């Protein structure tokens, strides 16, 4: 049982698990931070970007100035952006049997794996994951393909030259394997290999392993996976969130308060009622504290839309692979949402525009929901909200049809029937408008000041590049970063100098370390495996010992291109005993509570399922001649006899012998035991503690008789 680690990125994992003759790939995340080393792809020709000076070596050698450009002290590759793929050399990827996808962010490398490695297996993912993943890929392909760039830099990737480059480029890993974006054709082909699954669906892999997706609470359709055989269980936790339980807790508490008010005996006075209520309220606050939430009552419902995480099913794992924790362990998502809203309102009131670089799905639903509640109270009802993405419409539509994957509150809305997300109403009232791109209708409707949601959060491609160029020079405008995947400073680097305000309120609802330790306490895995980043405090906050995984035994860590041998040994395998065979078994009690039965049966193995069937009846002897021959057949030495155990009490044995007609039995004592002599038959039986030896003339009848008498005293195994 081994774990091959193909990606070093803790939130975009790509691991391969070899387990019981199956090869299972867990997620295939695409590390897109590599694009930060590239110049942005402007939708409209940008004079500023095209006039950036080329970069030259310290000695003045300028042979790289076509490929590398310098902007405010940073060096960028002037080329089509390229992505850092998972390792493809560590393991033969054509042997991968299945790929399990946990959420739509973790499937972006799928076309590279399924289309270029000879992969022939199946991919398993939930329906929302596939649909939204498709949208993300479609957007990505669209962003890159619609701005064709002739130039493709490759010179700088040369190992000798890379050494000479300034910092981020110098340290970039595996640049030779960086690849350009896939095409839509490859995306479609990759997605066609996906098989849809539902939460808690048990999927048999070759009869050997069973995999099950569980709700992880993070995004629409996001899942954790259990990989188990009958005796071993591996849990794969990737991108989980406990925040979703919030609305239910809140309502539960409010209900309790309400009920206690109603049900209190009327004899109690007002004050006693009040005391009870205050007590309950305090209790609830403590409760919230315990589950790791602050500001429960005041916060906005962030990421409360997907089904709550299924923790119970993770219990009793032998190994728990833990990836996809929050990237901003110090930030509270609810606080960030509040900050987002207030900054947005502030800018707009001052006549500025707000730019929100975001993915077309996910956090944007939260933001829109918060804004929906916030707009009127903040006096923003006249401000237009634009959502620009090639898949904006699809994303908004898709979000409304996955009622089954939503949390309970949203489901009940669907039952009314109402659309689960309030952005339907925003669109209806024309407060939120969506466009495939800045071309076309958008230019007619465009009105400032406004709020624009658009991608890509790396600020390297997509419509966001245009708005950065457009609004960057005015300090009235604000760009608010909500996606935690990219460092905002690095993202902004090619736009420097920048006058517009930058607000960083990353919203990451994935598990933080407090929640992780609570989770681990609850599910009690025997071993924890996680990326090495989680076993030490983040480099920027090396004193924060609480920002790491703390468990017993210490978590096993992995890094890119490492192979871990997981620490458990398989001892048992399930086998089925057919009822007919079971009926023929006669158990006997050896010790109190322990019974034994010897089994002789035919083993049938098909599709990794083992069945024991009763042995076939010996064929009835047909004719005399054949029978004779049969008796002369050389016996098959593979017919095993049971082992024997026990010891023979000599006196009783002698008595038995006498009872069976051996009259002249003589017993001699020896050092180790006894010798029983049958003088007439010239036969000698040596009896010792753990052995019996019958020495006789070649008289088969006698031998068999003696054997049967001996066997009477022994137990068979």
């Amino acid at each position: 049982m081994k774990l091959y680690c193909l990606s070093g990125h803790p939130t975009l994992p790509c691991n391969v698990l070899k387990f019981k003759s199956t090869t299972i790939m867990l997620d295939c995340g695409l590390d897109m931070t590599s694009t930060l080393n590239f110049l942005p792809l402007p939708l409209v020709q940008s004079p500023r970007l095209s006039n950036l000076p080329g970069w030259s070596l310290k000695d003045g050698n300028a042979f790289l100035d076509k490929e590398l450009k310098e902007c405010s002290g940073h060096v960028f590759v002037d080329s089509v952006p390229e992505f850092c793929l998972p390792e493809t050399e560590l393991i033969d990827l054509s042997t991968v049997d299945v790929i399990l996808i946990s959420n739509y962010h973790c499937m972006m490398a799928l076309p590279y794996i399924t289309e270029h490695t000879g992969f022939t297996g199946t991919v398993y993912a939930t329906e929302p994951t596939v649909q939204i993943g498709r949208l993300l890929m479609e957007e990505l392909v669209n962003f890159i393909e619609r701005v064709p760039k002739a130039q493709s830099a490759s010179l700088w990737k040369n190992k000798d030259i890379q050494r000479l480059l300034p910092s981020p480029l110098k340290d970039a890993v595996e640049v030779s394997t960086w690849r350009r974006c896939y095409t839509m054709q490859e995306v479609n082909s990759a997605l066609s290999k996906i098989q849809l699954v539902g939460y808690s669906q048990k999927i048999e892999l070759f009869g050997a392993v069973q995999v099950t997706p569980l709700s992880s609470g993070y995004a629409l359709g996001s899942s954790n996976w259990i990989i188990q055989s009958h005796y071993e269980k591996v849990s794969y936790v990737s991108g989980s969130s406990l925040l979703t339980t919030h609305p239910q807790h809140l309502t539960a508490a409010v209900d309790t308060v309400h009920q206690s008010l109603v049900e209190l005996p009327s004899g109690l006075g007002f004050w006693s009622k009040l005391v009870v209520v205050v007590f309950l309220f305090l209790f609830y606050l403590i409760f919230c504290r315990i589950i790791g939430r602050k500001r429960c009552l005041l916060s906005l419902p962030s990421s409360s839309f997907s089904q709550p995480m299924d923790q119970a099913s993770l219990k009793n794992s032998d190994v728990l692979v833990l990836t996809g924790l929050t990237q901003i362990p110090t930030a509270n998502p609810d606080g960030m949402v509040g900050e987002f809203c207030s900054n947005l309102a502030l800018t707009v009131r001052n006549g500025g525009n707000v730019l929100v670089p975001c993915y077309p799905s996910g956090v944007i639903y939260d933001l829109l929901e918060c804004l929906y509640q916030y707009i009127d109270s903040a006096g923003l009802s006249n401000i237009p909200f634009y959502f620009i993405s090639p898949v904006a419409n699809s994303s908004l539509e898709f979000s409304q049809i996955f009622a089954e994957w939503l949390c309970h509150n949203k489901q009940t809305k669907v039952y009314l029937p109402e659309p689960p997300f309030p952005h339907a109403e925003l669109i209806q009232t024309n407060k939120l408008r969506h466009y495939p791109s800045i071309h076309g209708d958008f230019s007619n409707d465009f009105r400032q000041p406004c709020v624009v949601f658009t991608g890509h959060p790396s600020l390297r491609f997509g419509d966001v590049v245009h708005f950065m160029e457009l609004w960057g020079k005015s300090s009235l405008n604000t760009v608010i970063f909500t996606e935690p995947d990219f460092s905002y400073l690095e993202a902004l680097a090619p736009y420097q100098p920048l006058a517009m305000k930058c607000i960083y309120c990353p919203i990451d609802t994935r598990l933080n370390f407090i929640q992780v330790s609570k989770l681990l306490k609850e599910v009690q895995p025997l071993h924890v495996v996680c990326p090495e980043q989680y076993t030490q405090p983040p480099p920027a906050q090396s004193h924060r010992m609480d920002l790491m995984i703390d468990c017993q035994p210490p978590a096993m860590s992995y890094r890119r291109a490492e192979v871990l041998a997981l620490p458990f040994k398989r001892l048992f395998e399930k086998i089925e005993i057919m009822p007919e065979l079971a009926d023929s078994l006669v158990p006997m009690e050896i010790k109190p509570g322990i019974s034994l039965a010897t089994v002789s049966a035919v083993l049938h193995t098909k599709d990794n399922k083992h069945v024991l069937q009763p042995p076939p009846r010996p064929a009835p002897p047909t004719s005399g001649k054949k029978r004779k021959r049969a008796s002369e057949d050389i016996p098959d030495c593979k017919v095993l006899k049971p082992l024997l155990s026990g010891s023979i009490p000599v006196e009783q044995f002698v008595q038995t012998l006498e009872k069976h007609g051996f009259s002249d039995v003589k017993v001699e004592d020896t050092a180790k035991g006894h010798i029983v002599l049958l003088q007439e038959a010239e036969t000698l039986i040596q009896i010792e503690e753990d052995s019996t030896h019958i020495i006789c003339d070649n008289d088969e009848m006698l031998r068999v008789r003696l054997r049967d008498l001996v066997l009477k005293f022994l137990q068979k195994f």
Partner: protein
Amino acid sequence: MQGTAKALPGAAHGPKVRARRESGLSIPTLWVTAAWRPRKERGSQPGTPGSEGGSGALSGKSFNSSRKGVPGGTGLGSRTQGGWGPGPGRVLLQVQAPGRGRGPRAGPAWEPGLRPLHPPALGSHARPLGYAQAPPRQIRLRSVPPPPARVYLPCRRRRSRRCWTRRPAPSHRPAARDWLSAVQSEGPERGRAFPAGAPEAGAPGCACAVRAAGLVPAELRSWAVVGQAWSVGSGSAAATGWGAACRMPEIRVTPLGAGQDVGRSCILVSIGGKNVMLDCGMHMGFNDDRRFPDFSYITRNGRLTDFLDCVIISHFHLDHCGALPYFSEMVGYDGPIYMTHPTQAICPILLEDYRKIAVDKKGEANFFTSQMIKDCMKKVVAVHLHQTVQVDDELEIKAYYAGHVLGAAMFQIKVGSESVVYTGDYNMTPDRHLGAAWIDKCRPNLLITESTYATTIRDSKRCRERDFLKKVHETVERGGKVLIPVFALGRAQELCILLETFWERVNLKAPIYFSTGLTEKANHYYKLFITWTNQKIRKTFVQRNMFEFKHIKAFDRAFADNPGPMVVFATPGMLHAGQSLQIFRKWAGNEKNMVIMPGYCVQGTVGHKILSGQRKLEMEGRQVLEVKMQVEYMSFSAHADAKGIMQLVGQAEPESVLLVHGEAKKMEFLKQKIEQEFRVNCYMPANGETVTLPTSPSIPVGISLGLLKREMAQGLLPSAKKPRLLHGTLIMKDSSFQLVSSEQALKELGLAEHQLRFTCRVHLHDSRKEQETAARVYSHLKSVLKDHCVQHLPDGSVTVESILIQAAAHSEDPGTKVLLVSWTYQDEELGSYLTSLLKKGLPQAPS
């Protein structure tokens, strides 16, 4: 103890009886228990000759004594002794098969022809149509002493509650008397109306389980644990105690509704000691108590929650969920109710609608309230497609797409290795808005399938659609009005999509109306649950949602009197009430108009009447309505036809099939077909009749990997001629089962091996030296035993595998050599073979 076959009157011949016959058990006597209750009422029935009705109950003693003389009656007796007898005042009918038994005995009372009892028909299962006419052979009537307070069987400690017993009629049941008389006067309907003929077969005790498992009681104790292993092996928590051991290796199915009938689907399934109720529907053909299943059949004095592990609702049609609030709130059930998300969303709306019609329009009292519907829905647990829901440690259910209506699902119910698939209603051909039902090759023990269209093989969907459009078009052209009674959800949407596209293509101007209320809402549900529709609609919904219609407008009551052609979709679909009936009454008189019935109509509804050709209808208030308008029937209802049913059976590969939700006559046909084609048993129980299927679940144990690998290393497939045997020791400790090699077993138990060795002396006439003799023995054995490893060791001895042969000189006779052949018990066969071989002497050495 043999569980006796008991069934309700007229159902005494059924699959169960047949099954037993086939298993070679003769049943001289059939016990028929009728649930005529309460007794006083029964006694007061006019024309009931039973004198015992009032107070002529025999004492328990006399019952028992008479029982002794009755061959085959022992099963019942034991049950009575175990405290599980028929209820007080209930009547036991004993039917003796002709030619069997001992002939009529002097019973306390004869009751010839009290009820049209069907003959036991032991030899054949062919049921004459109708329940009546066939005179009973010999019927003896006795009343039975009331049972003790406890209904537990002594040996079934844990699961003793798990048996279908009866509970007294709930006090709130309104008019038991009227209902009873209705039952009596309406002979042929009895089976449907009165499901609980109390086929109290089953509930076999421990002994029964033991017998079925083929174990003798002495071995039972150790095997008690075998039952537990089953849950251990399947990864769930161990069940402990006797209960698990006493799992009955059988599956029992009793339809409370939908048995040889359409409507009021409600099927009880007992599998692996778990009781599951499938669907909880109402019957549209009745307006009295018969519309709901008789839940008192399940238990008479316990809480339903204790007797049922879960309730599963297949889809939102009222004949599958209509009795749910009554069942859960008025009768009282607090356990989980499983259904899919769309069903959960739509079900309460239809129930509320149904309630309104029943209470507000018809003024029924004692009906469930809106609050009850809400409370009932709170007990619902929604399931995803293909999600494996663990109801408890052992029972799991899984939903498959059924395609019949939005959110319709088939359910697999699984306990250990035993499973049942219930299809609900399904459709095997994709239509304009839903996909086709699909199930994997799950090989259930039993497939319970609907059989609405058991004998129909429909022509292609396209033809039907063309016909439909043509008829609508013609009527509209000649200025007639078209009424299409539909149910708000389901067919309505499909036909809307059909007409919408047709209107657009042909550019028609006649208005299409949709009766308001539910239907608008319904379309909205379709929009939100688009993942449940078919591939095409799902793919295009972002661009254009198919459920946003351009040509179809909301209907107002006043429009019905408008002149000119129009098409109106109105609810409900069987013309039994509501708007569709109102419009029908208005339009029925004009021969230009047309009504198209797109779905199945239950007996007793106006829809059924006009379809069967009735042209004069008696309406409420003795009005007679003459139907002049054209009546057309188009089979659009999304049930699988015979071909579809066969297809599904082929897909799932069940071990046996059980038909429900169809008409008996048609079922019979399909049953034969299934039995012919798939060579599986097919059953079609009537309401209240129990089908018992013995199962043989295999026992999962853990095999040590070492042993398994050693076996596997010798090649995968054992040849048929020389089967290779796996030898091991099964260790049963607490609740764990391990199969290990014998050596390991010894080691684990801390025991030493006892070596048993044999040494035989074989005398050979050979005057040569010992070494030469040994060499000759070696070459001889080498030539004979080609498959074995024969070695000549340097010390002069010969080994064959592990058998040692030494040659020694005879102490007295120098011309004789003594061969000492020594082997262990484990090599006994070979050793004894060798001695006999050597005894024959060696071939003459070529000297």
